[in-house]
């Protein structure tokens, strides 16, 4: 079945969307939307890196995402506000990435990485996506108690014997992994949408953090499925179609919550 490009595309999109849906709530709770965005923008630089050092695109993007994390911590420790630090990093990395890709003289279409190209995923890409999904899910289950305590309050975490810095590092690594596999499916410019929109859609309907994560995954999965169907039906680009469906679901979720009130 996975020989069929349509089936591969569906499983790739589902895998990426569900991984994004899993950590999306944490991005919302910790207000890391712009952080995720900066990682995604830097992914283009990662693509250039992968050409330059003959490593896989996944490794290149992972490296660039971690570089963003290090730069961010350095700049904010040097009295830069976090949004200006992220603004500097995101757009410099994107610009250097675009220049570097052009200089590498590889016959690549940058759009593939900006907007994703889920229809061309190989079996190896698919394996990587699902490995990332499993790793992120396992990490969430393993650290769940500590993560929730940390989200509620740094001080409560510290006095309960947890280390907020460690949990934050875990979240940053998980984010880097999701961005690295998400490039292929929805692209650098839209991966943040898959982190934020499903989580935001889930928020009005849940009363616990657990429920929010689960519903966020459901919304993300439905968006991937519906978006891909729509892409085949209307012959539209897959990544943007998936995000469009997520956005429509968000509006519906909002309407339902308003009506129920």
């Amino acid at each position: 079945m996975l020989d069929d490009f349509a089936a591969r595309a569906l499983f790739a999109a589902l895998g990426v969307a569900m991984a994004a849906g899993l950590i999306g709530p944490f991005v919302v709770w910790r207000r890391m939307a712009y952080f995720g965005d900066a990682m995604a923008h830097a992914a283009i630089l990662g693509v250039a890196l992968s050409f330059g050092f003959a490593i896989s695109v996944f490794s290149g993007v992972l490296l660039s995402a971690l570089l963003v994390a290090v730069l961010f911590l350095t700049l904010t420790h040097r009295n830069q506000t976090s949004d200006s630090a992220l603004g500097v990093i995101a757009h410099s990395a994107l610009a250097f990435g675009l220049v570097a890709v052009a200089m590498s003289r590889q016959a690549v279409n940058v759009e593939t990485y900006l907007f994703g190209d889920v229809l061309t995923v190989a079996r190896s890409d698919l394996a990587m996506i699902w490995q990332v999904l499993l790793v992120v899910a396992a990490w969430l289950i393993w650290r769940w108690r500590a993560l929730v305590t940390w989200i509620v309050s740094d001080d409560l975490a510290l006095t309960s014997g947890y280390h907020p810095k460690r949990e934050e590092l875990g979240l940053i690594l998980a984010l880097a992994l999701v961005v690295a596999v998400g490039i292929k499916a929805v692209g650098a410019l839209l991966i943040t949408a898959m982190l934020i929109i499903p989580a935001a859609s889930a928020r009005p309907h849940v009363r616990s953090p657990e429920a929010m994560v689960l519903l966020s995954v459901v919304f993300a999965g439905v968006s991937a499925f519906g978006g891909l169907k729509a892409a085949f039906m209307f012959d539209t680009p897959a990544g943007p179609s998936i995000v469009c469906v997520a956005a429509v679901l968000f509006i519906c979720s909002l309407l339902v919550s308003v009506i129920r009130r």
Partner: protein
Amino acid sequence: MSLIEAQGLERRFGGETVLHGVNLSVERGEIVTIVGPNGSGKSTLLRMLAGALTPSSGTVTHAKGLVIGYVPQKLTLETGLPMSVRRFLDVPKRQSDADVIHALKRVSAETLSARQLEGLSGGQMQRVLLARALLQKPDVLMLDEPTQGLDQTGQADFYRMIEELRQELGCAVMMVSHELHVVMSASDRVICLNGHICCQGTPEIVQSAPEYRALFGTGTHGTLALYRHEHDHTHDHVHDENCAHGEDA
């Protein structure tokens, strides 16, 4: 041994020394109240003792297996975070329904279980935070300005409840306060803080100590002066300086 021992604690924030030269220990079952003007380092000291803040120098030693029930000054909860009172009481560890009901009853908040944290009033939130701390079966209960935002009756009730809890659980209580007249009567020991420990002892001793008078006014005598002082912060500054002066010499 003592539950908590602190030696030579110092804390700087961006080059500014907020607290220095603090030595103190907390013993099993005692109620310790830290008082001092705004910016005197009360919360900083409590958070360092609780392990929520690392001292710039000096050490904090906890007794082996020490369980701290920490009640923060306030919880700045993300509006994006859905959390019922019941779920919050499971932070960090899941608690049995029976224990939860008991803890909520203990702080007269049994009706709040299904409510979302977002919608709670300041006083309700304070009770829920306390219930959560109680569920940890703490050796020491640490409260950071627990009566902030409560009215007079609310404050008196709250302190009475803390005293009962100490009787019941046998835990030590360490709290930061600026409501002197109520706290003083309930405490075994009062620590008067202003960047360092100005004086400490039983409420009576502290009340008559010159350092304390320097910090909290000398115009009138006894508890009434302390009470009035709350509404008259204009003298604080001058007296702070006096105090720091006398001690640093």
